[in-house]
C-alpha cells in the first residue's frame, strides 16, 4: 500500500519491508508498506443479528479491521433481528460475509465506553493502570474482570 511521507525518518532503518519506489503516476518517490491481515480480530459491536451482520462504532477502525482480518469474532451489546440493524453517522454496517462468530456480551467494551450505551469508567481504568504495575495484582484484576459476567453477558 502506498503511504505519503515517512521517508527520511528512522522507520526505514527498522522496517526493511518498507520499500521506496518511483511513483508510477508522478515524478516523486513514494513509500510502500505491506498490508496487515490479522489472523483473528475481536470486535465489539452495538448490535448484531444472528448471522453476523452488525453495526459498530464508526469513530473507530473496527469496520476496516473486520474487512482486513481472516477471522472475526463479533461481540455485541444486543442481538437483534436483521431489520433492526440501522446505520447512522455513529454506527457502521459490517456484512456477515466478514464475520465468523457472534457473541451476546452486554457491557463488553467496559471499562472503556460504548457509543450511547455507556461511558468509560475512569475509576476502573485507573485501577487497571495501577494494577498493571504489579504482576500479582494484575493477575487478580484479570481474574476478577473475567468473572464479572455469567450466563452469556449477565453482569454480576
Amino acid at each position, binding site marked *: 500500500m502506498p503511504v505519503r511521507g515517512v521517508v527520511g525518518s528512522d522507520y526505514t532503518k527498522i522496517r526493511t519491508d518498507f520499500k521506496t519506489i518511483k511513483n508510477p503516476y508522478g515524478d*516523486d*518517490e513514494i513509500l510502500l508498506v505491506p498490508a496487515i491481515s490479522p489472523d483473528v480480530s475481536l470486535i465489539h459491536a452495538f448490535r448484531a443479528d444472528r448471522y453476523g451482520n452488525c453495526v459498530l462504532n464508526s469513530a473507530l477502525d473496527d469496520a476496516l479491521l473486520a474487512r482486513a482480518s481472516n477471522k472475526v469474532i463479533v461481540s455485541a451489546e444486543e442481538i437483534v433481528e436483521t431489520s433492526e440493524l440501522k446505520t447512522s453517522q*455513529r454506527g457502521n454496517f459490517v456484512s456477515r460475509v466478514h464475520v465468523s462468530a457472534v457473541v451476546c456480551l452486554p457491557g463488553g467494551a467496559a471499562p472503556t465506553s460504548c457509543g450511547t450505551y455507556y461511558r468509560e469508567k475512569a475509576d476502573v481504568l485507573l485501577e487497571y493502570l495501577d494494577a498493571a504495575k504489579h504482576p500479582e495484582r494484575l493477575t487478580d484484576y484479570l481474574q476478577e474482570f473475567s468473572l464479572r459476567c455469567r450466563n452469556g453477558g449477565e453482569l454480576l
Partner: protein
Amino acid sequence: MTTVALHYTTEELMAALIAREIRNGETVAVGTFSPIPASGALLAKASHAPDSEVFIMGSRDWWPFSEGSLEFFSLAQRGRFDFFFLSGAQIDRQGNINLHAIGNYSRPKVRLPGGAGSAMLYYMVKKVILFKTDHTVKSFVETIDFITSAASSPPALYRPGGLHLVITPLAVLVKNAGSGLLELLSFSPGTSVEEVRANTGFSLPDFSGGVTETTPPAPEELALLRGPVRESIASIYPRFAGQAFKS
C-alpha cells in the same frame, strides 16, 4: 525558573498562542493526547476563525467522520489539513521528533508509545505545530535517539507540509528557512532569553527579525478559554478541563 505571579496558566498561554496562528477558514485537525491544541483550535473557532473546520480525535462533537481514523488519515494524505499538532519525548535542533525510544532502539532505556500517524502527517499537513509541555535540556537535545518523524526529507519526496512553530511553556521557536535550524522567536512572560537557552540542549540562535517577549493571553482570550472552550474540552478531557484553566 523566576517566580512571577501570572494571571493565567501555562496551558492557557499555549492554547492562546496556537489559536493566534489559525486564520479564519483554515482546517485544523487535532490528534490524541492533545488537550492544549484542542483548546487552541476551539479558541480560534470561538473568536476570529468561526468558519474554520475543527476536527478533534476522541470527540463526538468535533469528529464528523463515519469511517474512523481511516477516513481522517486519508483526508490528511490528500493534503486537506492546514494545521496539525505533534509532540515528542525529544525534539532536536532541526525539529525532528522522537516518539519511539530513549536510548538504543533495540535495547531502549524507555520504550515510548510510537509515532501513530506522525511520520505521514508532518509531511502532508501544511503547517505543523510542535507543542511540548516541558522545555528542558533532556527534551530539546542536539541529537535525538530515534527519528519518528523528520523535519526534512529527500527532495524526490512529495512534501507540501512541515514545521510551522514550536510552542513550549518557555518559548516559541521557529525554523530558519536557510539553515533549517530552530531559532528563538519569543520568550514567555516571567522567563528570559537566558533561561530559555539554559533549558535548551542545543545552541539556539535569535530569530533574525529579533526576539520579543510573548504577548500574554488577552482578557477576551481568557474569557473564552474559561467559558465555552473549557466546557467543550470537558467532554473530551475532563481531568484537563478541571485543572488547566483558572477560575
